[in-house]
């Protein structure tokens, strides 16, 4: 017997018991929708991670002043104050390093007219622009003259514009950082959220020398961002920097801990990705549970259907159906149910992804995987959970089946 004829029998059978069909389909649909949403959320998270990797800057290392762990006089838990502009100049000239940007952190109240708010002040050099991908939309970035002459100039993030200027034109305006007046020379392009949920849009970029001399009166740096020449050079750069700083700071020969730490920014993201993956496998487990419930529902309904249709099966065997025909018919019914459930689930899941992404602001993406995997899974469910009832139907003794009606 040909498949398309079986398909007709199966369609008729499903049509005969529409409520039962609806029940099985919705069971599968719920599971599939859950899987579709999870895959969508996973794809969205990957996409967000990808974007933030691109935003972060390529092949970037952060050389941070580390926390002190010894030194009773100065107290533990403070930052080492040994990273300097000289270190930056030497790191910049290492063969594995493409460029480096020093950072002196300054926090504090920023005032424009009557409005005041706290922002992150980043004292740095022009290299910061390229290394960290801080693009300027209007005006200009700080330049070498600004650094050399300790100009009181500032490039402000999009968030700063939102909070302090309310749509007014900020370029050329003066803002007070602490008690120092700064002239605004540029506005940074909006970067959005980092993978850890923080944002760089509240940054105010000023010359490193201005922060060190005019604001904090210090010589040290908080960190140095280093861009390696290539991805392969990242470990080389790490080693070179470590050797250099240990030599300069005199820790290499002793048992003292380093006064700096080097972070591979991409590796940091990879760790985060791994964490989101393990969270993903938890939710995937929940989805598997939902799918299994859908599958068990399908199994129960199919068994019920076989039991209810003993007479039909007996009759089919009496008029010449082979056991194979009965098997194929019932398996086809399961597959049709699961595929309908799969389709409904993908539609519902897709809608959840599109609407949910808008409403919650979570990163979700509708990719081909969101559609393809649930379909394959529902097909698998149909075969796994449909096989048993179908086999049972095919092995039925026609005499018993006919008599039971």
């Amino acid at each position, binding site marked *: 017997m040909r498949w398309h004829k079986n398909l007709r029998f199966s369609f008729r059978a499903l049509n005969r018991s529409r409520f039962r069909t609806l029940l099985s389909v919705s069971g599968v649909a719920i599971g599939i929708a859950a899987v579709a949403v999870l895959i969508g959320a996973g794809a969205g998270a990957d996409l967000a991670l990808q974007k933030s990797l691109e935003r972060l800057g390529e092949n970037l290392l952060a050389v941070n002043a580390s926390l002190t762990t010894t030194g009773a006089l100065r107290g533990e838990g403070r930052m080492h104050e040994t990273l300097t502009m000289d270190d930056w100049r030497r790191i910049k000239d290492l063969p594995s390093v493409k460029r480096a940007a020093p950072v002196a952190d300054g926090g504090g109240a920023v005032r424009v007219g009557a409005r005041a708010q706290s922002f992150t002040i980043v004292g740095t050099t022009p290299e910061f622009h390229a290394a960290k991908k801080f693009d300027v939309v209007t005006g200009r970035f700080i330049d070498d003259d600004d650094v050399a002459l300790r100009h009181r100039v500032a490039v402000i993030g999009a968030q700063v514009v939102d909070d302090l200027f309310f749509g007014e034109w900020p370029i050329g305006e003066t803002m007070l950082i602490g008690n120092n007046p700064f002239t605004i020379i540029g506005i940074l392009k909006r970067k959005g959220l980092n993978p850890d949920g923080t944002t760089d849009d509240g940054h105010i970029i000023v010359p490193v020398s201005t922060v060190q001399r005019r604001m904090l009166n210090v010589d040290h740096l908080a960190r140095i961002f280093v861009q390696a020449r290539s991805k392969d050079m990242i470990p080389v750069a790490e080693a070179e920097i470590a050797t250099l700083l240990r030599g300069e700071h005199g820790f290499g020969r002793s048992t003292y801990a380093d006064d700096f730490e080097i972070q591979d920014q991409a590796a940091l993201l990879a760790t985060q990705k791994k964490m989101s993956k393990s969270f993903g496998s938890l939710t995937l487990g929940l989805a598997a549970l939902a799918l299994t419930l859908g599958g068990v529902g399908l199994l129960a309904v199919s068994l019920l259907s076989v039991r209810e249709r003993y007479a039909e099966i007996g009759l089919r065997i009496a008029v*010449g159906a082979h056991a194979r025909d009965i098997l194929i018919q019932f398996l086809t019914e399961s597959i049709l149910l699961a595929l309908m459930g799969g389709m409904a689930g993908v539609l519902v899941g897709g809608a959840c992804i599109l609407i949910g992404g808008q409403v919650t602001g979570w990163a979700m993406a509708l990719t081909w995987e969101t559609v393809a995997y649930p379909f394959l899974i529902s097909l698998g469910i149909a075969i796994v959970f449909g096989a048993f009832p179908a086999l049972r139907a095919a092995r039925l003794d*026609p005499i018993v089946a006919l008599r039971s009606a």
Partner: protein
Amino acid sequence: MNILGLLDRADSGEYSIDGQSVSGLSASALARMRNAKIGFVFQQFHLLPRTNAVENVEIPLIYSNADNPQERAIAALKRVGLGERLKHYPEELSGGQQQRVAIARALVTNPELILADEPTGNLDKASGEDLMGLFEELSADGRTIIVITHHEKLAERAKRVVRIDDGRLTEVRHNSKRSSATPIGEVA
């Protein structure tokens, strides 16, 4: 009945249909033989619910991959006098009409043998009479019809009566008043 209909195998003895012994046949071969050579009529009709008359009658043809199943199903329904009820569901037909659909289904593969198990058991007297009339017509066409029944009066209409009491064959009788060359059996 089950052995005659190839739904069960004989524990002992030999059963040949159309000169061919069935004891050595595979399940598939038996299925093909049921399809081609035997038509079943049951006391409970066994029509698929919410499936119209034509679709019910088509089923054996679909299993045998026959050409034009729909046309042949319609022809069989016309043969049993249901030409006006082709698209009716079993629920919309009387008991007698349902049994006629079942007979059309048994006829549609043009089998040599029609096996009817208490075909009038669920019918009123008039419908039962009609049905036996139909069987007599089919018998006159040269088809073998075996009717299993408890009704002595019904059995009197058969050409040959085989009486079985408690599994034992107790009587074989030929009714001379019937002109048909086709035997109809009785199992009591």
